[in-house]
């Protein structure tokens, strides 16, 4: 585990990416790190591609991850993991939600959804953790909790005690969704991570 790191979150507007990076930022901050996170608002909620940069360390200057600088990428959608691949380096770990969401040009039949995305990542020598977060979230009865499932998987790769994540979830998630999100975190951290690591 390193004393600093760059985590890239990407996916599709509406998947709860900003909340996931927020929870992770809070956990890192409470664990004593300087933290900066950056994203672009405005267009995001309308189904566009979303990118969130999260950097932690003793002192973080730039809010942006440099191309080739991301130590971990968390892709909330399958093909989005390829869109931002220039941010990765050969030792990057990539958590990929295997859920597919058709971009507009695929939805209208003008283009095809890329095939063998996980294979494309592996062929480049990247270490990939595939997670069916949508299915895992459905299993606990709340499809919107897939973001916290992925945070649970991610928590295994960070130098932060799980209590900081749990506190962060308690702070950021509305009370009526808290129990299911804590369950999502647990499921992501244990079952989903074990399953992904064995693939």
């Amino acid at each position, binding site marked *: 585990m390193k004393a600093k790191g760059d985590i890239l979150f990407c996916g599709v507007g509406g998947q709860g990416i900003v909340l996931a990076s927020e929870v992770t930022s809070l956990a890192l901050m409470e664990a004593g790190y300087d933290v900066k996170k950056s994203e672009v608002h405005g267009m995001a909620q309308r189904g566009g591609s979303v990118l969130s940069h999260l950097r932690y360390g003793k002192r973080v200057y730039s809010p942006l991850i*440099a191309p080739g600088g991301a130590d971990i990428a968390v892709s909330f959608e399958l093909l989005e993991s390829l869109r931002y691949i220039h941010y990765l*380096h050969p030792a990057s770990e990539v958590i990929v939600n295997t859920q597919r969401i058709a971009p507009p040009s695929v*939805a209208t039949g003008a283009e095809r959804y890329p095939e063998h995305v996980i294979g494309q990542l592996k062929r480049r020598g990247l270490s990939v953790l595939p997670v069916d977060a949508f299915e895992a979230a459905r299993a606990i009865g709340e499809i919107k909790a897939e973001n916290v499932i992925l945070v649970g998987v991610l928590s295994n790769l960070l130098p932060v005690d799980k209590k900081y994540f749990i506190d962060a979830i308690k702070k950021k998630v509305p009370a009526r969704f808290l129990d299911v999100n804590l369950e999502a975190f647990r499921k992501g951290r244990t079952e989903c991570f074990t399953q992904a690591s064995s693939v």
Partner: protein
Amino acid sequence: MLLSGNEAIALGAYEAGVGVAAAYPGTPSTEILENLTRYKGVYAEWSPNEKVAVEVALGASFAGVRAMASMKHVGLNNAADPLFTSSYIGVRGGLLIVTTDDPGMYSSQNEQDSRNYAMAAKIPMLEPSDPGEAKEFAKLAFSLSERFDIPFLMRTTTRVSHVKGIVRTGKRAESKVKPGLEKDIVKLVMLPPFTNIRREDLERRSERLKKFAETFKHNRIEWGGKKVGFITSGVSYLYVKEAFPEASVLKLGMVHPLPEKLIKDFARKVDKLYVVEELDPFIELQVKAMGIKCKGKEVIPTQGELSQTIVKNAITGKKTAPAYKPPKMPGRPPVMCPGCAYRGVFYTLKGLDVFVAGDIGCYTLSALKPLSAIDSVVCMGAGISTGHGMDKALGERGRGKVVSVIGDSTFIHSGITGLINIVYNGGTSTVILLDNGVTAMTGRQPTPASGRTAMGELAPTFDFEALGRAIGLKHVYVVDPYDMKTTREVIEREVNREEPSLVIARRPCMLLPEVRGMREPAYFVLAEKCTGCRKCLGLGCPAITWVPSDKDKKKGRAEITEVLCTGCGLCVELCKVEAIVNDEG
């Protein structure tokens, strides 16, 4: 606390004892005012536009209360009129005007550099680098404003406003200025010869500010190696520190006026001097005018955002390429929401073969495929006036060929005067007012027509039909854009009319919580009935997907994603074989 730059600005203003805040929503500035509505003792309002917001804040300052206006960079253009005279008048209660620039144009029509306004309007400007500084600078600005009798500008960029970082909280302070009304004709009435008196006074105040800049603690030198030195400000400072941690840096927290002695002193002590700034060579040109040799835009890009990588590569002249390159893949642009009522209007317009003079809002996205139904976009309100210009330029040749389209919030911001102009000057334009009851694009803020205020209080509503008639329009019609047949009939009839008309397409935004609860059951496609004609795909609805057939890839059928469908029924109207149904039949 982990706060965004915008949340930090609101906190800083609160801690400075701000009493009145006004704004018009615009990315990346919106959350500043939204956050101020949550603090006790602060009156916060959405004004109809930025000019009004700055005037409201100026009035509060006249009354001896600390006040703030916030807006995006293009909003400052709208507010430029009061801005340029406010420096003459000065302040009583401290006044801060925040402008948020958008280098890279993530959600703006241009990437103008607002620092130029500081020099042009003779107003001092602070520029924070991160949320921590944003809070501190916002808090400081009010007392500085009172001390120098001048409004302060603060400029951020997307990577300050929408970055979250660690911020320390403090206590709420109070101004020494006593609230109340004070008549002072020389200071407050900008009529010659008082203007000349204040103009001369402004020079004296500017001189004092220049002296202050030399010792201002946020204009600071961080000494490192002396072979290379950097002058920088804002988020560019962070990129420089990351790219050249060993170099000497003169970090400017105040970018207008500049500390000439400090800059000259720094320049003398380093072998090679670079100025690193996003967008315009604002600092660089002034440094060069001081007779100092330096490099800036010879190597640093003038367009878009910088980053540590761009700065490093520009200075060293080396190019670093990341290990991987993204493969070619389908893009994922933002789209109009499923169930958006405006989709019906733009689908209709696309079928009419007209030139659509568009405006600023969610609906601008209908310029993209497959709707491709907006033909020009300039700035807030321009849809109406440019439509009128085309009408006058072409006369008979343009009849029935031009339509102006504008949203309700944008119409109140800058469209009303354009509509008055059409009626007054005998135009024949058709203006379609898209009325969904909110400023949707920036996150559904209430407008003067929504019936509630920024602080959640009830407000009178606004009668667009009565307004149209009051300014002399004879033809004002309201249509439900979910009823595409009538919408088409009315638009077609009005476009060909030789008189001006206002067509109000009214349906609340699908994202409003009260509307979400009233959704109709989702539709689905009967696979055996769908002929694969692709008609429904022309709506560009995110809920409708093309499923290619296994045997013949050119053939296929449409499918509706249940969780996305809002049951608006637009696709049902288009389907000629009645293949789209819901559980109600």
